[in-house]
């Protein structure tokens, strides 16, 4: 009974995904640009120690002022 319940939920979720994708595809065929979204915000910068900002080795400050995307920890997609 429990296995049957889980299978039913999985089937419902799969159908939902298919229906959602089909609906999304319909929307895209009408207005493809509207469905495209920009990239997300950068990840949170991490903790700063008691002496971090008075020393030379403060990773969050280095990331915040970096001149390359990889050093800044910007998203990859």
């Amino acid at each position, binding site marked *: 009974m429990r296995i049957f319940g889980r299978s039913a939920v999985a089937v419902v979720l799969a159908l939902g995904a298919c229906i*959602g*994708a089909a609906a999304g595809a319909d929307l*895209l065929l009408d207005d493809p640009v509207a469905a495209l979204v*920009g*990239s997300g915000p950068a990840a949170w910068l991490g*903790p700063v120690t*008691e002496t971090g*900002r008075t020393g030379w080795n403060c990773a969050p400050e280095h990331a915040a002022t970096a001149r390359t995307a990889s050093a800044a920890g910007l998203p990859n*997609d």
Partner: protein
Amino acid sequence: MRQPPAPPRRRACQTTDVTHRLAIAAACALAFAAPIAGASAQTYSRPTAAPRTTDASALSAQARQREIHERFERGVGAEERSDWAAAATEFRRLVVLDPPEPKGSTARYDLALAEIHLNHFDAAAALLEEALHRDPRFAAAAANLVAVHLRRGDLTAARAAADRFVAFAPDSVLALYSRGITALRAGDLAAARSDFRKLIDTDPSYAVAHYDLALVELRAGRDDAARVELEHALTLSPAYARARFALGTVLMRGGRRADARVAFDRCAHDAVDPALRALAIDLRDRL
């Protein structure tokens, strides 16, 4: 009767005398050498005695400094193991202790980080504003503040925070990226285009900046410019599924259905996001 002359007296143990002299000389040498040798072996100084005071205000200040140090240690340790509630407790007490700069703004930044992870975004925003009020060039606080306002859905505040960030860190790619995505969400295409172009000038190898600039151009109706940016993005990062999907939509809009189908097929292959993969497969199959 005359006594025979006594045999010449041998000088009393001449050799013994010499030995004595040598022994004395050796003893003197050793006596002088010992302190010298001792001094050269002891090359480190004695530890400085701890300052002692019975003054109540001095003792109170020392205790406060010690508490600030300990709470920073414990709070940062808690954040590093993602124990945000424990970290918040330590940093709240630190804010009450109100250490001088830069520790005061740092304590508020760290408390804001804990509040973010506890989903208290309004509190985090207020703390980061306080940190920046105390230290207007605290770049990490400025970066997190833009992201907090975006998470709160307050585009006006996010744009103001991003403007402030770029004003004091104009070469920071994080500042340019933050202001670019904020402008794009707000529909300010000219500002978004300007920031993404500056970002590309600063780091031409960043594929996502080309993708975001392509979205700006698409929304401005400049499909050819968008396609060029998407091709740049895909040259830099061939498995960039969202850029591949966007290229498919540009090609589809331009009537190039066969090319669009190839792009959607490749997107379906590369996409990690199941929703994007499902959408790409559906569009591929409709073309």
